[in-house]
């Protein structure tokens, strides 16, 4: 089992500071997603780990040994790229065989192990197809099998699902997770898709401006974002004002909140933690006006204006029956606030 440790890694490309004092520890057998907007440094971090870029300062340890001076081809990590990267002149079988060949596994041993991998990834019937004869999902499956072929200590995935269409993406995502858990391989997965990150990770590393902002399991990042960037980047957040009542208490959307420093004038609230009251004359919460309604299946998302603030909230679709734009309603805080914000 192998862990990965970035310590104080910085990398600059010309004028752009891609990574700045980047620290990250990926435990052995863990799947960590690096998540962030484009240009946040997540791909640079992955490429430094893969050995395709050299850090300006800092060090990377894999299994306790520094790897920055080891050439990519001697690191022996498995890597999957966004653009499939299969060798166009080789069939699926020969692409996977190539990985074995480079590690000196030949002949009958190679053949049986390639067959086993083709079986494991459900590619048996496509074994003798060339990449251009396969769909994107099938190609990426071959690439995954090729990367895992020689049982590498670390698996690196660079936006592996971004070029695929939605249905295939979810299927392959679950498959990657299954393979990762079966093999227990330490995995770093780079993505800009928060849903992907939340569904697949043991921990999510949220990155911004070349640094790691938060590293935690998905439910924790969602429930307790460390700052307003994480709060708004992951899921939907409402930034609503905090009201002070005469006796020094603080209220948010008609409910008293405690444990917040009065210096904070705003809090972040998730849409599912705001309740909508259809009866405008009830004394609950604060008055609001419906601005738009969108049906999402089991839930309906409504946008309401409260004074000058727009808040998004989710309510069960059965309760949203007949909810119209411009309807007078009331909204109430009905759950925790995720973050206090100045």
């Amino acid at each position: 089992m192998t862990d990965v440790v970035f310590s104080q890694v910085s990398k600059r490309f010309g004028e752009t500071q891609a990574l700045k004092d980047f620290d990250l520890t990926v435990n052995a057998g863990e799947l960590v997603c690096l998540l962030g907007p484009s240009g946040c440094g997540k791909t640079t971090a992955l490429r430094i780990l893969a050995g395709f870029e050299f850090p300006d300062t800092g060090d990377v340890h894999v299994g306790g040994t520094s790897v920055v001076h080891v050439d990519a081809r001697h690191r022996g990590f498995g890597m999957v790229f966004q653009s499939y990267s299969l060798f166009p002149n080789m069939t699926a079988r020969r692409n996977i065989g190539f990985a074995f060949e480079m590690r000196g596994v030949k002949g009958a041993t190679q053949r049986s192990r390639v067959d086993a991998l083709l079986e494991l990834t459900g590619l048996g019937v496509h074994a003798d197809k060339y990449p251009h004869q396969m769909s994107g999902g099938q190609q990426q499956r071959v690439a995954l099998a090729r990367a895992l072929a020689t049982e590498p200590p670390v698996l690196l995935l660079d936006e592996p699902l971004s070029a695929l269409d939605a249905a295939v993406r979810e299927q392959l995502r679950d498959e990657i997770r299954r393979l990762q858990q079966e093999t227990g391989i330490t995995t770093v997965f780079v993505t800009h898709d928060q849903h992907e990150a939340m569904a697949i990770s043991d921990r999510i590393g949220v990155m911004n401006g070349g640094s790691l902002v938060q590293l935690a399991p998905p439910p924790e990042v969602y429930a307790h974002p460390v700052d307003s960037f994480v709060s708004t980047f992951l899921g939907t957040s409402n930034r609503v004002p905090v009201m002070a009542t005469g006796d020094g208490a603080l209220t948010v959307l008609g409910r008293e909140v405690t444990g917040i420093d009065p210096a904070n004038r705003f809090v972040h609230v998730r849409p599912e933690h705001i309740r909508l009251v259809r009866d405008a004359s009830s004394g609950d919460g604060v008055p609001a006006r419906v601005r738009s309604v969108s049906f999402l299946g089991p839930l309906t998302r409504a946008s309401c204006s409260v004074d000058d603030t727009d808040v998004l909230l989710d309510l069960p679709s059965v309760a949203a029956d007949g909810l119209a734009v411009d309807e007078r309603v009331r909204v109430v805080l009905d759950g925790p606030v995720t973050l206090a914000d100045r």
Partner: protein
Amino acid sequence: MSATMGRRLGPARIVFLSILGIYFFVPLLAMGRFALQRIPVVSLTWGNLFEGWSAASAIDALTDERVLEVTRRSLMLAVAAIALTLILLVPVAIYTEVRAPRLRPLILVLTLTPWVVPPVALVVGVAGTFRSTAPWFLSSPYSLVPFYTLWALPFSYRALDAGLRALNVRTLFEASRSLGASLPTFFLRVVLPNMVSSLLVVSALTGALVLGEFAFASLLLKETLPTYLVVLQGGDPRAGLALALVVLLLTTLIIGLAAAALRRRGLSFNAAGI
């Protein structure tokens, strides 16, 4: 290519293609009639279009010993020019694509310079330099090879570049490295097999250029197929034109065979971006 063929032929397209066809076909027909019909030029009319054709003048020209000699020489020069082009350009193109993509625009501009400098200036400059330093260089007919390679540069480099770009070499390089492949393995097992198409295109075009190039050979006082054609046309216009026609057909055949070979491998000629 098949997509172009499959497109519907609108009236504008038919008119355009017809005009283009006439533009190319009429001179060829005139050449053929002059060279291969045993009728004096002044008596050639539409009425005797199908009379008196004979391949005798073409056979005469083709069995002429001088012609065979200059043809052999030109073919050798073509092979040498192709070899030099590939040896020089393939590593540069691959290196640029994999390691220095920022230099790409600069290199594309640089490869155009041979067409900015006229052959006369090029020959005079090079001849002046070598006559005083290495006079033996200019006495061999193979001194033409570097000129041909230079002259082919604008399109030979572009064909290689386009082939590499379609291949996404950078990612393939990184993928092969992460699998543990060395640089030579990557070249031999991944890049070259996938570049067959563009290598063939470069070779066919460079070869066709050498078989038709006149200015350099003439200026350097070398006798090649094209310069001998001119000589031949001075003495025996019929044989000269017959030979020119044969050369034309041969070059078309070479390019056609290359294209057919590519298509059999499921590749397309315009994959090379020309």
